[in-house]
C-alpha cells in the first residue's frame, strides 16, 4: 500500500495525467461529472456520485462506428480507428466498479463489442472507497463492499491521506510509474474502513429484500397487476437510464454531414415511447410495458442470463434523480412481497 497527503493531491493528479489521460470527478456549474483533468480543474472527490456514471468513458453516450461515402451507386466504407488512447479514471466508487463488470457481461460476450473492449483495455480504473454514503445507497444489497472498491487500483481517504493499493497487474504497473507516492501500512486505513462499516449499518435501505426477485421470477412478476400503479406517474424520460451505471441499450443512427454518412451509436432508453416502435405497430404500446421492461431486465432477465447477477448495483442515482421519485427500490419493495408468495 502506498499513500499521498491530500495537500499534495494535485501533484498526484499531474503525475497520473503525465502517464495517460486522466478522468476524474469535476465540478462544472454545480454538477459533478467525470471530466478530463487539466491544471486548475475543479476536482470534487468528495461528491458521492457523479451525475453520469463512469460508464460514459467505456461506452460513450455517442460514438461513431463507421462512415460511408456515397458515390453514385457505389458505397465506400470508412471504419474509424480503434480508440487507443490510454487513460485512467480516478474516483470510481465500488458500485460503479461493479457496474463495469455488468457491462463486461454484455459487451465482452460473443460477439465482442470491439469499441468497448478497446476502451476497457486502454483504461485503468482507480476506485475510491466511500466515506459518507447517503440514504439512497444500497450497494450492500448486491454484496458490494464500498470499503473494498476494486478496480485496477483501490484507494481510500483517511486522516488527510489518500491510500492506494493495486488490485490488478495493470494497476500495479500503473502505480509503479507514479513517483510522488510514499509507502504505507495497510493498518493505516483501518479507522476509515471501520467508520464506513458503521455508517453502512445506518443506511435505511441496507435491508432491502430481493428474495424471490431473480432470474426465475418472470412468470410470477411479468403479469403483476402492480405494474400499472407503479408506472402510472412515469414520464417516460430517460433520466434513470442515462444516469444508470449499467443501462446499456443503444440506438444506431446515421448522420449526413453533407460529405459523408456517419453511422454512430448512442445511448437509448427502453423507457422511450419509440424504443420498440416499428412501422406497423409497437410491441410495448404503453408506458406500463416499457416501465416493466426496464425493471424486469435489471432484476429478472439479466440475472437469468448472467448467473444470477443483477444489473443493478445500488448506487442510488435513480433514487435521487427520478423527476417523479419512482425508482427501483420502490419497485423491488412492491414486487418483493408478490414474488415471495
Amino acid at each position, binding site marked *: 500500500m502506498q499513500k499521498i497527503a491530500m495537500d499534495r493531491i494535485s501533484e498526484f493528479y499531474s503525475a497520473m495525467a503525465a502517464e495517460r489521460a486522466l478522468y476524474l470527478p469535476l465540478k462544472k456549474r454545480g454538477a459533478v461529472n467525470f471530466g478530463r483533468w487539466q491544471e486548475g480543474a475543479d476536482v470534487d472527490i468528495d461528491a458521492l456520485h457523479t451525475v453520469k456514471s463512469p460508464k460514459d468513458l467505456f461506452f460513450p453516450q455517442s460514438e461513431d462506428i463507421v462512415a460511408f461515402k456515397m458515390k453514385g451507386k457505389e458505397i465506400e466504407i470508412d471504419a474509424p480507428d480503434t480508440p487507443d488512447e490510454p487513460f485512467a479514471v480516478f474516483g470510481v466508487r465500488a458500485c460503479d466498479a461493479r457496474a463495469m463488470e455488468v457491462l463486461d457481461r454484455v459487451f465482452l460476450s460473443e460477439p465482442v463489442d470491439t469499441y468497448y473492449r478497446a476502451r476497457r483495455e486502454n483504461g485503468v480504473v482507480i476506485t475510491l472507497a466511500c466515506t459518507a454514503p447517503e440514504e439512497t445507497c444500497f450497494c450492500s444489497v448486491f454484496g458490494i463492499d464500498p470499503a473494498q472498491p476494486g478496480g485496477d487500483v483501490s484507494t481510500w481517504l483517511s486522516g488527510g491521506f489518500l491510500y492506494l493499493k493495486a488490485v490488478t497487474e495493470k494497476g500495479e504497473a500503473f502505480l509503479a510509474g507514479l513517483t510522488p507516492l510514499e509507502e504505507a501500512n495497510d493498518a493505516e486505513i483501518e479507522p476509515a474502513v471501520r467508520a464506513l462499516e458503521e455508517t453502512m449499518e445506518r443506511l435505511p435501505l441496507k435491508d432491502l429484500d430481493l428474495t424471490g426477485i431473480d432470474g426465475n421470477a418472470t412468470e410470477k412478476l411479468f403479469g403483476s397487476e402492480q405494474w400499472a400503479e407503479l408506472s402510472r406517474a412515469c414520464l417516460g424520460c430517460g433520466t434513470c437510464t442515462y444516469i444508470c451505471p449499467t443501462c446499456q441499450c443503444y*440506438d444506431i443512427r446515421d448522420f449526413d454531414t453533407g460529405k459523408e454518412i456517419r453511422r454512430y451509436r448512442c445511448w437509448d432508453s427502453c423507457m422511450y415511447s419509440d424504443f420498440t416502435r416499428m412501422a406497423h405497430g409497437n410491441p410495448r404500446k404503453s408506458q406500463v410495458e416499457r416501465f416493466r421492461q426496464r425493471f424486469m431486465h435489471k432484476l429478472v432477465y439479466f440475472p437469468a442470463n448472467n448467473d444470477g447477477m443483477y444489473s443493478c448495483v445500488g448506487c442510488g442515482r435513480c*433514487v435521487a434523480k427520478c423527476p417523479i421519485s419512482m425508482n427501483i427500490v420502490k419497485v423491488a419493495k412492491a414486487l418483493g412481497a408478490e414474488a415471495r408468495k
Partner: protein
Amino acid sequence: MQAVEKAIKEKARALLADGTVDRVLGWEKGEYCYDNTPAVFTEEDIDRLVYNSFCGANLSKYLIAESKKEGRVLALLKPCDTYSFNQLIKEHRIDREKVYVLGVPCHGIADVEKLNVKGIKGIESIAEDGGRLTVQTMYGEKECELNDVLLERCLSCKGPEYMAADDTVEDPAPVELRKHDRFGMVEKLMQMTPDERFEFWRSELSKCIRCNACRNVCPACSCLKCVFDNDASGVSSKANVDTFEENMFHIIRAFHVAGRCTDCGECSRVCPQGIPLHLLNRKFIKDINENYGEYQAGADDSSPWPLVSYTQDDVEPGKMEGGKN
C-alpha cells in the same frame, strides 16, 4: 401543512363518496420524507395521499391522459399548477368536464438538492414547523429555513390565487408573497458580453444528457410526438452528438413553448444536471412582456398566445432590446 393535508383528504373523501369524482390525482408518500410520487387514489387508498412541502410535481400534465379515461378525476393543483392547467384547457388538451380541480394552498416547495448543497446529506427525516425544517441525518441533526431551500420557481411565486378551481382548500396560515426579481438573472446575463454569455450557456448546456426529463415533465411540451423523436422531421436525435445539438434542442424547445410556458419551473426542477432551463423560458417571457405587452400564459383559458397573434407595428427582428455587444 398537516392541517391542509387533513382538509384535502376530507374533501376528497366527500367528493368520492357523493360520486362527484371517482378517483383522486395527488401525491403519494415515498420511501423517504421527501420523495413523494404523483399517484391516483380511490376511496380505499386515499390514506396514502400526502401533502407537504415536497409535493413539487405539477400534476396538470397528467390530466391530459386522465381526462381521456372514464369518469371524473379530482385533481389537486397548487396555485401555480392552475396556470398550466388553464393553458392546457386553452389548447384543448384536457377535457374540462372530466376534471374537478381542488386548489390546494402552497407555502413553497423545498428543493432537496439545495439541502444537499447546504451540506445536509444522508437525510433520515424532516420535521416541518412553520417555515423551519429540522432534518435528522445519518450524520446528525441539521436545521434550516424553508425559505432558504426553496425551488427556484417558488422564489418568484405567482401568488396564492387559483386561475382555475372548482373548489379550494383554505390556507390556515397564509405566508407573505416572496419578493424576488424574476428576471434578475436574465438581465444579469444580458449585461454580460456575448462571449461571456456564450461561455455561460456552453458550460450549462454541455452538461445536458438528453434524458428528455425537461421535455417530458413540461406541461407545454405535450406533443404526442416531439420533433426531436420524429425521424421524418429531419432533426430527430437521441443524443447530443455534438455541441450544436445541445444548443439546438433547448433553443427549439424554448421556442416551441414560447408564449405558452407558464414559467412553472418543472424543467429546472427535474434536470438531473441542474441546468437552469427556466432562464431560457424567462428570456422569451421577458421579451414578450416588454415587446408585445404583459402576458402570463395560463392566466386565462382562451386568449390567443403571443406567437399566434401580432400587431401591425410589432418590433422588427434584431431590434429587441438586447444586451451590450
